[in-house]
């Protein structure tokens, strides 16, 4: 493994940083034309640098790392963390996704935000997000990674509540922020555990390389504690049980934000972190089991909710949670390359799905209820075609991107001996194709159910929005081809590329791959057929089933009442505690009492002591004489004793 000094990595951060500053301070003043160029332009520039770095990395032997130390950052006794960027295979792939997909979404946003007056603030936030995300994936130590981790959380909050005049949107932003804080606390504690464990043996480091070379200092117990705490952070950021609740509400933000942050990039940070620290997680089998279980349960749980949601973005939100569950499942069974592979293909097709949903909403004046759509196929053909491709990709049909990655995950799960989790996985696969084709059929097929007022000006989005759709559609088709199964054509290039960064996956048994593929594929087809039957052939069926299984339907429609449960056991008691105990007693009584009391004491003291100032010069002189006498008396006393 060679480490190559590569200062150009700094440019990757510089461009979005400049874009952020420009849009923040000059965007509104210089106007839309400048913002529309600078906003996406800096991301394209960053992408170009990433691409050059990637090519440079490819020319080096496998396992090489590009690195640059921008400045010395934290120096505390024996501990130090530098602002050092590193690009290995995993970071390279992540930066390519973050800047590549990010650039396309920036372009799309130019069209999407064309009628919003706050475009400059929007692009400033998007650029800041790109900057934070790039710090996150390029950091060479946990502290710097945490900075990016917090940065993306902040941008997520800012962008979810972008339309802050709507109280519900502002609330959604707060919810995301608070849920992420819970996870971030776990991340911090995990970091502390690592530095304490290593530090107690005299190795004060949080560099990934440093942790990896001192793995022997971890016992199974300390590794388990550290990874469990980091897992809390991952579930927060990547919207897994139990901290997933913020992601569906995060759809309050503008749709490009949902595509970029809450589908393609930020929410995969948890998966990235686990893959980045794979050597540490490998020491803690308990945590790995938990990661896989959380992933599988989240996948099927969120998938089941997505089956009945009427809101097009909510379906995609739960679908995202479900697909992130797949990634967790993959990395949880040790198939890090498969998990990261799915991360990549998911970034393509889920970003595309969200952008298509945005395009649909754009053409319908912001309508999100799928039961008020229908028959849009011929009216917005490009959106329809690209969304269909993305749907085929997420439904894991060959040769679309999702097929290869999801198949690899399921195969790895089965081969690692987790048959129960594998069954959850394939059921989720059936659900995925069902709810996605339900979305397609409800939106684009059948009779038009569009409201009269909106029906007459349905229009295809401008080319600035459709071009990114087409590019992402191409990626959703061919994106999976770099990770073909072993021995098929050029085989799994991606796995070979990533292996030095995240370790090779060695399944326990071989040979059943074709059989497994056939099972998951047939279930996916079953889902499609069911959706076709329910929503095109017999549109009355869903209502009948919903009526027959009212309890189950309501359970799903209301998302298992988890929001209500959290409200009851966490939010309400906290609220009660803050209002009554902390607010009325501690704040209003004790703290206000101290503050007001201090003021009152000074005022009363002043009122009393001002009476001394009579203005009568003879009184002053009298006191003065008394003072002189006192001093004389004192000296007389000293002399006589």
């Amino acid at each position: 493994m060679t480490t190559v000094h590569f200062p150009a990595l700094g440019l990757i951060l510089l461009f979005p940083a400049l874009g952020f500053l420009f849009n923040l301070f000059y965007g509104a003043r210089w106007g839309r034309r400048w913002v529309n160029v600078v906003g996406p332009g800096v991301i394209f520039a960053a992408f170009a640098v990433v691409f050059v770095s990637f090519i440079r990395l490819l020319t080096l032997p496998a396992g090489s790392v590009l690195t640059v130390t921008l400045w010395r950052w934290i120096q505390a006794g024996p501990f130090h963390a530098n602002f050092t960027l590193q690009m290995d295979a995993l970071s390279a792939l992540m930066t390519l996704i973050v800047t590549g997909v990010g650039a396309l979404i920036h372009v799309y946003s130019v069209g999407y935000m064309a009628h919003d007056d706050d475009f400059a603030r929007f692009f400033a936030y998007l650029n800041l997000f790109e900057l934070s995300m790039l710090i996150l994936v390029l950091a060479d130590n946990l502290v710097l990674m945490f900075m990016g981790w917090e940065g993306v959380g902040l941008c997520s909050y800012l962008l979810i509540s972008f339309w802050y005049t709507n109280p519900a949107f502002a609330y959604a932003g707060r919810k995301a922020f608070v849920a992420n804080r819970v996870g971030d606390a776990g991340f911090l504690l995990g970091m502390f555990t690592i530095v304490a464990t290593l530090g107690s043996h005299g190795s004060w480091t949080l560099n990934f390389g440093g942790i990896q070379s001192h793995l022997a200092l971890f016992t199974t117990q300390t590794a388990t504690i550290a990874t469990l705490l980091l897992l809390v952070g991952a579930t927060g950021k990547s919207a897994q049980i139990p901290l997933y609740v913020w992601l569906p509400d995060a759809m309050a933000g503008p749709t490009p934000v949902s595509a970029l942050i809450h589908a393609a990039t930020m929410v995969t940070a948890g998966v990235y972190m686990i893959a980045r620290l794979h050597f540490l997680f490998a020491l803690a089998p308990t945590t790995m089991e938990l990661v896989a279980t959380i992933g599988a349960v989240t996948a099927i749980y969120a998938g089941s909710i997505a089956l009945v949601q009427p809101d097009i973005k909510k379906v995609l939100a739960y679908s995202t949670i479900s697909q992130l569950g797949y990634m967790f499942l993959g990395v949880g069974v040790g198939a890090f390359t498969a998990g990261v592979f799915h991360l990549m293909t998911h970034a393509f097709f889920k970003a595309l799905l969200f952008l298509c949903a945005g395009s649909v909403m754009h053409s319908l004046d912001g309508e999100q209820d799928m039961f008020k759509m229908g028959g849009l196929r011929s009216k917005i053909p490009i959106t329809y075609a690209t969304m269909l491709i993305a749907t085929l990709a997420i439904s894991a049909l060959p040769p679309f991107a999702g097929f290869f990655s999801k198949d690899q995950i399921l195969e790895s799960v089965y081969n690692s001996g987790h048959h129960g989790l594998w069954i959850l996985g394939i059921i989720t696969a059936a659900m995925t194709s069902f709810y996605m084709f339900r979305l397609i059929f409800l939106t684009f097929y059948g009779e038009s159910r569009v409201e009269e007022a909106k029906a007459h000006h349905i229009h295809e989005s401008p080319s600035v929005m459709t071009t990114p759709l087409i590019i992402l559609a191409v990626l959703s088709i061919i994106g999976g081809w770099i990770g073909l199964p072993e021995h098929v054509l050029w085989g799994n290039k991606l796995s070979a590329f990533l292996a030095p960064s995240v370790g090779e996956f060695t399944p326990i048994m071989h040979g059943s791959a074709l059989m497994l593929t056939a099972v998951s594929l047939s279930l996916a087809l079953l889902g499609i057929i069911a959706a076709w039957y329910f929503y095109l052939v017999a549109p009355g069926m869903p209502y009948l089933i919903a009526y027959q299984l009212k309890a189950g339907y309501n359970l799903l429609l209301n998302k298992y009442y988890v929001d209500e449960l959290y409200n009851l056991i966490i939010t309400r008691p906290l609220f009660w505690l803050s209002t009554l105990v902390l607010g009325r007693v501690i704040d209003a009584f004790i703290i206000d009492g101290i503050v007001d009391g201090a003021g009152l004491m000074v005022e009363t003291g002043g009122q009393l002591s001002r009476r001394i100032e009579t203005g009568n010069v003879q009184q002053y002189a009298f006191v003065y004489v008394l003072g002189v006498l006192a001093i004389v008396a004192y000296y007389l006393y000293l002399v006589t004793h």
Partner: protein
Amino acid sequence: MMTVSYSWLMALSAAIFTIGVAGVLIRRNIFVMFMSIELMLNAVNLAFVTMARRMGSMDGQVIVFFVMTVAAAEAAVGLAIIISIFRNRETVNADELKLMRW
């Protein structure tokens, strides 16, 4: 030649000083208060020359000249202030001059 003992001179000085202090504290007329201050100054002067003579040193005598100079300046400024006050307020009663208070 009859010499007066230093104790008598110091006692005289103390008596004049006490009269001055009493005058400042008790009398309401600021002119009288002003004159009482002069009394105190001269009481101190007397104490200075007495002690200078007793010590056989010129220092005390020199200081007296300074005191007299300063007293002259003080008399000029002080009288000017009193006249100015009287022009404005038409009174020299200290009890009626209590503007600087709460």
